[in-house]
Each structure stands twice: as C-alpha cells, then as structure tokens.
C-alpha cells in the first residue's frame, strides 16, 4: 500500500507541476520567410455577392506590403476558404484552415452564426489560434472567457444601436419608430442595444429568420407599419444589404419610399450594393446610416486615396468600394499587429502585442480603437451618415460628429478623437 501511495503522490505532483508549466509558444504557420494567415468567409452565394471582395482586398494589401519588404523579412500569404455564409461550412472550412493549411492566425472571419460555430468546431481556444479583426459586430465575441483569442474590429451591434437611439432622440423627436431585424444574435444584439439606450419602439421589432425576407414578406411588413403610424416614422433596418434592398424595393413598389425615414444599420447600408441590387437612386437619397470608416468615395481622405492606389496596382479588375476599404483597413491593422509582435513571432506573442499596443495602431477609422488587456472591442463608436442619390455617404446634418460608447450600459458620448496620421505610403513602420 505504501508504494502505491508514494507512486500516486509522485504522479499527482508531476501532473500538477506539468499543468502549471505554460504551453510552449506556438509558431505554427511561421517560417523564417513567411507568415500564413487564413480566412473563412462567403465568396459565393447571396452573402458572397456582397462580401466576396473583402478577402481579395486583404490579400492585395498584403501583396503591397510583401513588395515593400514584408513584415520583419517575412512575406504574408492569405489562405481564403469559401463558406457561403453557412455555419456548417464555416465550421469545416475553419477546421481545415487549422488542421490542413496550418495557418498561424485567422483574420477577418465573417458572420455571427458562422463564426461562433466555427470557433467552437475548430477548437480555436484550445489551439490558442489568434482570431483577428473578425468581420462581425456581435457583442458576444467580446466575452474573453468564451472567445479568448478573438479581437473584434467592428463596433458591436449593441453599440451601433445605442448610437442610433441617440440619433433618433436628437433628430426625430415625437416620430413613431419601428424596427425590422434579422432573427439571430446579430439582430437581437441590435434590439438589446436599443433597450439599453432606453428607446422604446412603437411596436415590437419585427424579426425575420435569415434568408427569409422575400419581396412579399417585405411588402406585408411595410404595409402594416405604414398603416400603424401617421406622420413620417423612422424605420430601423437591422439586416444585411440584400435584405435592405428587398425592403427598399418593396417600398418603391408600394410607393412608401417617402413615408418612412430609413435608418439602415451599417451592415445593410452599402450604397453601391443597394444600387447594384436594383434600388433606385431616388430611394437611397436620404437613407441614414452609421459608419466608422470614411466613405469609400471620399477622395479627400488620405487613407482612401492610398488604398485606391493599392487597389489599382494589386487588385486588378476590382472596383474600389466600402468593402475593399474595410478589407484593406483590417489588413493594415494586421500588419501592425504582426510587426508589434516582434521577430520572434508566436501566437501568444501576437495576442499580447495587440492587447498592449493595438489601441495606438494607425488606421482609416475615424473613431478610437479600444483593445487592451481587458477589452477585445475594436472601434468603439460611429459617425452618422446620410446617403445621397449618388450613393455617397456624407455626415448627417453636414458636420462630422463622432459618437463613442461601450458595449454595456454606458452612455453615448460625443468624442473629439483625431485619428493617427497615416504612415508614409500606407506602409506601417511600427514595432
């Protein structure tokens, strides 16, 4: 008995000792001359039509950096896998990125349902795979316990909703307000944001399952809402751009385009896409939205000009728009993160670098970045825009006002943030 007790004591102690030894720093996907990044995102399907340009834009920016020395002598390659915005496919594709392509980190994963499923299925937490600058604003991703390696970049949908609530309060007092939102975590995040901000809609928000907003359904919803309130109610649309287009086209058919003030969430308000999907310029004129980046048509913005230049040279055949701008912006942040992590590049090191230095990174964003040791929130605010018939987004009310807030119950404040100057030629030199 004594020997068995001694043996088990040794085993138990060794186990305890071994468990507190930190996991060895992981450099999978990194060689002396290369860094392999990966992304699972829709390239085909209805979401692919809208978001298909983003990974190519990221790759174009990486190619530009590679042509200018890379990061600490390493060239960045991006493995792109198509998940058609389907959670199951996102799960298997992300698993393939980790197991088969053996990427160092993920960047720009898209979608709430898709990425939350992919995160679990691909065991990203267990493998400590950095999950950078995801292309979704679901506030659940700020939960470090559940998503320890994830860094958001878009402000959360809850934050956007809070800013919208303030905009409605300040500019449309007394009007009835309605909301149509996607029936999943994305939409309910928005609904929750309005509730936190203390805003009460004139009727319960209409929720529709993703992919189910047909023309008929849109017409039915609009007819009901138009009948429900006099005057010019504000209609908040919290869905993807294809759904916003369906609803706006239904409004055209029912001649209700002037009946509502449309307040379209940033996810569903890309003017180019709306026009391409058949919405009339006169309908888009006046649609209110929110953004944290400059408008892709603002040629006075140095970041926009630089990205257009890179796009022309490294992304041939692709028209520059807000999606290309967003992709390149995330790529620029990624390059700064990789630089900040140093020559001895490890997964853990990359995560710490963003926590320590990320909030100071240069980017096109007109609002502050919030990464820190305790926060995984990227941009923490919005400026309110209004579209004109040409599809340009200009500051609502004529003057650029930056609103910042948190993802919790904090108030919405007006900020006097000025963004860092763009590094020369758009090539970061940070460390």
């Amino acid at each position: 008995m004594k020997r068995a007790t001694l043996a088990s004591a040794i085993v138990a102690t060794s186990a305890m000792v071994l468990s507190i030894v930190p996991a060895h720093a992981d450099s999978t996907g990194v060689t002396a001359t290369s860094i392999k990044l990966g992304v699972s995102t829709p390239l085909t399907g209805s979401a692919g039509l809208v978001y298909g340009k983003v990974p190519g834009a990221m790759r174009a920016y990486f190619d530009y950096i590679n042509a200018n020395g890379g990061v600490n002598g390493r060239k960045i390659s991006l493995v792109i896998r198509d998940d058609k915005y389907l959670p199951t496919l996102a799960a298997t594709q992300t698993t393939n990125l980790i197991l088969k392509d053996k990427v160092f980190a993920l960047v720009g994963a898209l979608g709430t349902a898709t990425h939350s499923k992919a995160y679990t299925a691909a065991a990203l937490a267990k493998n400590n795979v950095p999950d950078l600058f995801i292309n979704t604003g679901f506030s659940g991703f700020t939960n470090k316990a559940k998503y320890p390696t994830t860094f958001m970049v878009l402000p959360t949908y809850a934050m956007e909703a809070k800013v919208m609530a303030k905009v409605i309060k300040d500019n449309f007092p007394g009007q009835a307000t309605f909301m149509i939102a996607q029936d999943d975590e994305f939409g309910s995040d928005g609904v929750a944001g309005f509730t936190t901000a203390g805003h009460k809609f004139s009727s319960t928000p209409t929720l529709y399952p993703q992919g189910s907003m047909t023309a008929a359904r849109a017409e039915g919803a609009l007819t009901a809402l138009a009948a429900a309130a006099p005057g010019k109610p504000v209609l908040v649309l919290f869905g993807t751009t294809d759904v916003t287009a369906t609803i706006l086209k239904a409004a055209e058919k029912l001649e209700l385009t002037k009946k509502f003030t449309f307040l379209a969430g940033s996810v569903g308000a890309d003017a180019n896409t709306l026009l391409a999907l058949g919405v009339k310029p006169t309908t888009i004129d006046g649609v209110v939205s929110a953004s944290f980046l400059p408008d892709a048509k603002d040629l006075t913005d140095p970041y926009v000009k630089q990205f257009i230049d890179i796009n022309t040279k490294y992304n041939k055949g692709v028209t520059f728009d807000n999606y290309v701008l967003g992709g390149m912006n995330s790529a620029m942040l990624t390059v700064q993160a990789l630089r900040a992590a140093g020559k001895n590049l490890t997964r853990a090191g990359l995560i710490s670098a963003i926590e320590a230095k990320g909030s100071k990174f240069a980017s096109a964003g007109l609002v502050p970045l919030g990464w820190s040791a305790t926060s995984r929130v990227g941009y923490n605010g919005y400026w309110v825009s209004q579209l004109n018939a040409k599809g340009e987004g200009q500051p609502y009310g004529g003057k650029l006002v930056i609103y910042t807030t948190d993802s919790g119950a904090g108030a919405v404040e007006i900020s006097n943030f000025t963004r860092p100057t763009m590094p020369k030629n758009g090539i970061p030199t940070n460390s």
Partner: protein
Amino acid sequence: MKKAGKVHKPTTTRKRLFLFILFGWLLLILGDRVGDLELYQGSFVATYALAITSIVLLTGYSGQLSLGQSALMAVGAYAGALSIFNAGWHPVVGLIMSALVAGVFGLILGLVAARLSGPYLAGTTLALAISLPTLANQFPILGAEEGISFDVGPSPARFGEDFSQYKWFFWISALAALIMVFFIVNLLTSRYGRTFKAVRDNPVAAQLSGINVGRLKVNAFAISSGVAGLSGGLLVMLISGVSPSAFPLSLSFSLLGAAVVTGLYSLKGVILGGLVLVAIPEIADSLVSRIGGSEGFTTVLPGFIVSALLILAVVFTPNGPGHLLKKHH
C-alpha cells in the same frame, strides 16, 4: 435450429464478431499513428460509411429509392442535439436517441409512403429533403440558422490533457459505425434479411410465397432511418452543432452517388464510399489550386464531381462495380 443447413449460423456470427473486433482494434492502432487532420477526415469517413449503409439497406436491399436520407439524418441530429443540450442527457444517450427518433420517424414515413414506389417515392422523399431542414426556422427551440450545440464533451480525463479532440471524435464515430454496421450485416444475412432481397428482386413472387411485402418495406424504412439518424448525430458531433445548413439536398445526392458508385447492393463498399466522399473535396481543392481557379470554385466543384461520377457509374456499371468484378471469375 430446425431449418436445413443452419448448423453453422452461430459460428458465422461469432466469426463476424471477431472480424469486426479485429478491425476495430486495427483502427484503434491506426488512430494512434496519424495526425489530427487524418483523424478528423477518418471520422467523416466513418459517418458517411454509416449513412451509405442506410441507403444500401433501403434501396439496395429493399428496393425503395429515397432521395431524402439527409432529412432523416437531420431528424437524428436534432433529436440528439436536443437530448444532450436541452434535456441534458449523457452524450451516449443522445446518440441512441438520434437513432431511435429517426427510426420512429422513418417508421411513420414508411407507413405513409407504403403505397408509393419508384419515382413517386423518390419525389416524396425529395420533397422531404428540401423542406425538413427549413422547419428549424419555424420552431424557436430548434435554434433556426444558428442551430443547437451538439457537444459530446471532452475526452475522459484518464486519457490525459493532450488527448486530441479529433481522436476522441474518431473513436466515437468509428465505434458507433462498427456497432451499427455489425448489427445490419447480421440482420441482412439472417433469414429475415433474405426476405428483403426476395422483395427487391420480385415483389409479386415474394408476396405469393407469404412474405408481407408492405410490412417489410415499412420495417426497412424504419431501420434504414435509424441508421441514417445515427450518422446524422455523428456528423453534427464533428461540427459541434446542428443547423439546417448541415443537411443540404446535395448531401442526399452525394450519399446516393457514393452508394451507387461503390455498390448499391452490398455493404462491402460502404467504407470505400465514405472514403470517396471525403476524398472528393480534397481532389477539388488540389485541382483548383493546380489550375489556378478562384477559391469560390472549390466549393462548387465537389458537387459537380459527384454528379459526374453518378452519371458514369449508372452508364457503365448499372448494377454496381461489384458485378463488373464478378464477370471475370
């Protein structure tokens, strides 16, 4: 046993059991020698092989063409997910529920479709395959597009902290598939199993010799659905959760295609069928990178390859490749 020539029946079953255990042991050893990626793919092979088994049973052995196996897999998957996530039962119970609930569903379906055959049955099952997954959007408890988590839990602590999650999946899926296929093989080689073949080859003669054709077909549907349901549960285990997008119509066609290509009338080809289904996306991947196509093409190509294989198989080996081999005896 009073029937002639049945003396060696128990020994055959025991021999089969021994073979299955031996095969399982081989898989166990193999599992220790390969990487996570191979284990992940191996789990899919086992799951698909099981799904193909259900098709061989239903179409190959009882002569009923169903284009809706993916719907039955979905029923099993949701049943399993609800059992584990909502009801909080043990994962093994969850997997058993996947088989049971799908089996009951198949029983009802079989009863409803009892008078249908050929293209009419195919059409009905096709409609089911298209419509069933969208039901998830109608009932909030089914979680709509996000679905329900299907978590079999981490590997037992006694295997150590470094025990790969993918090895754990492989063990579970391979074991479940082995057990179920063993059961089916025994069923099909029994006297009851021979009545299946009788009904498939000549339903009128079978009826005349006293076999209750209707009841048999319904039973075949039920058992096949149970097998499909279990494979559905295993499939969503691999992706950590069930959602409608896990069971598209293309899955039914892929499974049927693989079953036809590797032999619809025999269970010998099911593992090969599973391998084919896992290999096709890999082939598509390397094809696309070699010819330099866009990444979007990579997800479209597998469906095309499956369709092409199916057409080729039907044209050149209508009775399955096994028959081709037999000719050379």
